[in-house]
């Protein structure tokens, strides 16, 4: 096929496709380091202020967090099925599953935005707007503020990755509509899929660490 030529530095299509995935994995390794710093900061402060973190975590709506996890896992399934559709050359199914992935990704952000606005309304946004008063002498409001600093930073950076992911999915949608993908050439679908699943993996860790501290 004319538009699925192997670039001259590769032996064949398989090697070219492997190289594309490998490149994405190298980028994802830097992403692991990026989020890793935040997780390390979280570990240090949770170790230092266990009572404050447990109390702060109870301010969140764990049910919405769990629902959002289910939404994101389902979007990952749709993304995996979109890649499958690209591999098998089904353009209609590819576009359908890309659309479902985008709808579920957007739903995640809507739910997350609702949670944020509620928490900001409760005065839990760190800084001048932080009005939380500690109900117990066991921990200070400043320690709870530290939790919310990490909470807003980590979910914020994660949400930003979701927005980038949605833009990339939009690009895939346009390219699929223009019939740019074939069973021989779908590397963009595969590597953007890798990115989307990675963002899902980050949330898999954020959910229990932020929402589920201490038993109910």
């Amino acid at each position, binding site marked *: 096929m004319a538009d699925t030529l192997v670039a001259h530095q590769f032996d064949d299509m*398989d090697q070219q*496709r*492997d190289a594309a*995935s*490998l490149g994405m*994995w*190298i980028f*994802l*390794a830097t992403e*692991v*380091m990026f989020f*890793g*710093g935040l*997780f*390390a900061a979280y*570990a*240090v402060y949770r*170790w*230092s202020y266990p009572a404050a973190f447990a109390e702060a975590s109870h301010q969140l709506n*764990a049910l919405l967090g*769990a629902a959002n*996890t*289910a939404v994101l*896992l*389902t979007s*990952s*399934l749709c*993304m*995996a*099925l979109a890649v*499958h559709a690209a*591999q*098998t050359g089904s353009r209609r199914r590819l576009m359908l599953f890309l659309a479902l992935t985008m709808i579920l990704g957007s739903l995640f952000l809507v739910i997350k935005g609702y949670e944020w606005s509620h928490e900001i309304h409760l005065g839990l946004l760190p800084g001048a707007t932080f009005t939380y008063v500690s109900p117990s002498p066991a921990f200070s409001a400043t320690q709870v503020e530290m939790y919310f600093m990490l909470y807003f930073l980590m979910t914020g950076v994660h949400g930003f990755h979701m927005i980038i992911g949605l833009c990339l999915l939009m690009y895939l949608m346009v390219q699929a509509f223009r019939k740019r993908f074939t069973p021989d050439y779908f590397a963009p679908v*595969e590597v953007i*899929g*890798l990115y989307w*699943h*990675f963002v*899902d*993996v980050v949330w*898999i*860790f954020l*959910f*229990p*660490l932020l929402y*589920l*501290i*201490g*038993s*109910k």
Partner: protein
Amino acid sequence: MPQHILPVSTYLLIFAALLALLLATVGAQYIELGPYNILLALTIAIFKAVLVVLYFMHVRFSSRLTWIFASAAFLWLGILLTFVMADYLMR
């Protein structure tokens, strides 16, 4: 490596497993285990992440080179967390 197309049923099975593990994470919070609650939650999270990486991200069927890079990412994360916490835990 020639590409490996997984059947749709595999994706559905992994998805069902992920949802079951999500329910397990939420359910585990209602059991009082003290410091082991966090360990249990993290163990389940690692299981979920491994399922996503191996099947949704196709690493199980990827080249050895991809394995090395994917493992290296988490190996270095492990070094970061281990050394930081070794400091704090032993103060």
